[in-house]
């Protein structure tokens, strides 16, 4: 046994394993984090391409490029890829890179399981995207029932590829659950001496809570797709009234997963903003403990608001009122967070590097998305908004200019730490301004479209909606191609020619354990635990 240990000593003096095996067999949190991030970035372009097909079709009324059947597949796969293939893996990638460094650990608690969590994703998305490729080659339809796959569209009327979709969701679920267990074990068990819970950086806190949400709801998603599988092929009648079941049952189980999922996709971004804003305000975060309690409250409330997605299904009025008030309550802890970010900036000595710009845009644009959420929570108003572009505008404000902008901020914020090189600030600012302007051209008109009654998920529309749709499509193409600037900037920073070397501290105002390590951070973060005072 001691011989084995000796061998380890030799191998791990920051000598990375080489070749493809380094990635396939990795037990290193940074390599696995890098794979997650590249996977997510790749999927961003795939999902983005589908979105551009949708926006091209909607540029003017009438059917131009895609048939309605293919249009349905575009909206479905766009949603599934962006939710499960972009936002969630990007967050797990960031957690992998940053959580061990922020709590003073050498790696994640369960490194082999960590690698399995990652490698399940290419498998799952391979299955899903294969069904789209086959559909384009004329061999049956890809999933076409929207990313929420409501029964009976996905049971009685689902195409054959639905079964591949079901197992693909199972694999994503296994991946997420193992990833979440790993993050929880790491945070509970691997913190450096003196790193008490209430000293943990907010990003670690938000991920800690997100991981609990994941473990609680991903199995419910697995349950609902299993019921679908059995309804489709083995004669059960969970979602079929003819056998005493109910299609609305599908919506209840799905949204019991789906609503916490919404917070899974935003809480880590809250954490990122809570790291970025203090750094560039050169102040400590305002109201640290209230941030922790607000995040916990949001997580708790997320479990008792699911039916606000289903106000028009014919629930009893008392139920609708309960879910309306519970939903409105979420505005309180969210408001606490926005207040704290603004208060952190108050009288700080601000500077506006790209991460800070994205963080400030996040605060503005996420708040717009939050307010439209509040509008949607009002039952009588929701009867009007349900299934219109107003809903589309709402959740794209929170997911694109919210979650995704948070990820952009994180990438610019930590890229110098990861690579040892500063990114190109000019290109970063260009990326920021083009993204922020175009994202508003893209999604703001959708509010008006929705209020005027334009339905979601329809490839054609009435003439009165033409101007705003054309405008949104222009914004979509600018936003989509702008992301190539980010790709170029990242590649340039990694290659490190004509770039400035980053110091360990990187930013003037940076605080926390990750900045005590050199840039680029060593292959294994802390081989002996640092002591936190």
């Amino acid at each position, binding site marked *: 046994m001691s011989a084995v240990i000796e061998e380890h000593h030799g191998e791990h003096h920051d000598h990375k394993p080489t070749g493809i095996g380094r990635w396939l067999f990795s037990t290193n949190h940074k390599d696995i984090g890098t794979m997650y991030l590249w996977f997510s970035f790749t999927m961003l372009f795939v999902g983005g391409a589908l979105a551009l097909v949708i926006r091209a079709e909607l540029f003017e009324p009438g059917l131009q490029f895609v048939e309605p059947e293919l249009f349905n597949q575009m909206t479905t796969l766009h949603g599934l890829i962006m939710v499960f293939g972009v936002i969630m893996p990007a967050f797990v990638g960031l957690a992998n890179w940053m959580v061990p460094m922020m709590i003073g650990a050498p790696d994640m608690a369960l490194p*082999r399981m960590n690698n399995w969590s990652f490698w399940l994703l290419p498998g799952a998305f391979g299955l899903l995207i294969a069904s789209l490729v086959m559909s384009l080659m004329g061999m049956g339809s890809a999933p076409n029932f929207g990313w929420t796959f409501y029964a009976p569209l996905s049971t009685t009327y689902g195409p054959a590829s639905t079964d591949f979709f079901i197992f693909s969701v199972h694999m994503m679920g296994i991946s997420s659950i193992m990833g*979440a267990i790993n993050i929880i074990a790491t945070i509970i068990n691997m913190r450096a001496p003196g790193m008490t819970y209430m000293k943990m950086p907010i990003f670690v806190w938000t991920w800690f809570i997100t991981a609990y949400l994941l473990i609680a709801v991903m199995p419910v998603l697995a349950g609902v797709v299993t019921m679908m599988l059995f309804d489709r092929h083995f004669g059960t009648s969970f979602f079929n009234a003819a056998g005493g079941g109910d299609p609305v049952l599908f919506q209840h189980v799905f949204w019991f997963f789906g609503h916490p999922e919404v917070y899974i996709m935003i809480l880590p971004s809250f954490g990122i903003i809570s790291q970025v804003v203090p750094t560039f305000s050169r102040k400590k975060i305002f109201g640290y403990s209230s941030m922790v309690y607000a995040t916990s409250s949001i997580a708790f409330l997320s479990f008792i608001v699911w039916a606000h997605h289903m106000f028009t299904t014919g629930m009893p009025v008392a139920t609708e009122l309960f879910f309306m008030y519970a939903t409105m309550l979420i505005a309180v802890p969210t408001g606490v967070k926005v207040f704290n970010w603004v208060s952190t900036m108050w009288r700080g000595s601000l500077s506006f590097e790209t991460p800070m710009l994205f963080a400030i845009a996040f605060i503005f644009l996420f708040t717009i998305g939050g307010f439209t959420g509040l509008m949607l929570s009002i039952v009588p108003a929701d009867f009007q908004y349900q299934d219109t572009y107003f809903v589309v505008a709402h959740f794209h404000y929170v997911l694109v200019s919210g979650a995704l902008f948070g990820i952009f901020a994180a990438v610019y914020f930590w890229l110098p730490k990861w690579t040892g090189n500063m990114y190109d600030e000019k290109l970063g600012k260009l990326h920021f301004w083009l993204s922020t302007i175009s994202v508003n051209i893209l999604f703001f008109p959708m509010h008006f479209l929705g209020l005027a009654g334009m339905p979601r998920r329809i490839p054609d529309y009435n003439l009165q909606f033409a101007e705003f749709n054309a405008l949104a499509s222009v914004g979509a193409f600018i936003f989509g191609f702008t992301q190539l600037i980010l790709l170029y900037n990242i590649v340039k920073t990694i290659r490190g020619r004509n770039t400035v070397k980053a110091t360990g501290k990187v930013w003037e105002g940076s605080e926390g354990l990750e900045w005590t390590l050199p840039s680029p951070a060593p292959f294994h973060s802390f081989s*002996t635990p640092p002591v936190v005072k």
Partner: protein
Amino acid sequence: MSSTTNRDVYFIPEPSKWPVVGTIALLTTVIGAVNSIHSGSISLMLPIGILLIAYLFFGWFGTVINESMADNYNPQVDKSFRIGMLWFIFSEVMFFAAFFGALFYARTIAVQWLGGAGNNAMTHELLWPTFDAIWPVLTNPDNTKFVAPKEAMEATGLPAINTAILLSSSVTITIAHHALRARHNNKLVLWLAATVVLGVCFLILQAEEYIHAYNELGLTLNSGIYGSTFFMLTGFHGFHVTMGTTMLIIMLIRSMKNHFTPEKHFAFEAVAWYWHFVDVVWLGLFIFVYWL
């Protein structure tokens, strides 16, 4: 930043092929499963996938057991494993929660509404006038599509015996655990073997009950919402008992090989926790599926 695998401080495993093997195994299995469903006969990929999963379990757990027996693990690793198992079991609880939720929703809402409760009088009147909102549902809204069962499954008889069996197995595994901690290896093996036997008995009786349901009661997966919830809940539970019994058998073999010490026996405890979890789920099933 000298070495990382500083055993006194941290343990980080070597690069490992098992995660990639796991992905290939799962992919093969699910593609095989879908192909089998679509073609109506077992596709070759399905058994190959399942064999790969078995290979994965033997290989991955074998690696971990070897590392553990070689004393490579420090108490921190042990704690990480414990946290991992604990939250894995919690995720399993939530999986069952989805099916229990479906059961409660069907009983208290879906079936009642089909029978005209709340503001659904016209649903009943116009769509399913012959439907009676009683649980267990013995006449479906549409009996041509879903063949209703002749009778409901009784709680006395096999289910009651099975409850007694699982409850006793929780006692026997606890006795085995105490024996392990007191270094009484023979006693450990004996009581663990008893637990395995009880697990197997449960599974045999469960199979018996399913045969009874299909042949005599006409209660099948296809007999409407009662059959759907009954077989999905008891079926997934039965699958978990099968997994648990397999794990217990592995623990029995490892006990006979003297793998466990009073200080270090995480694998045994993990299996015991899992077994208790399976037991608690059964109590929920017995109360809400069979009894009430």
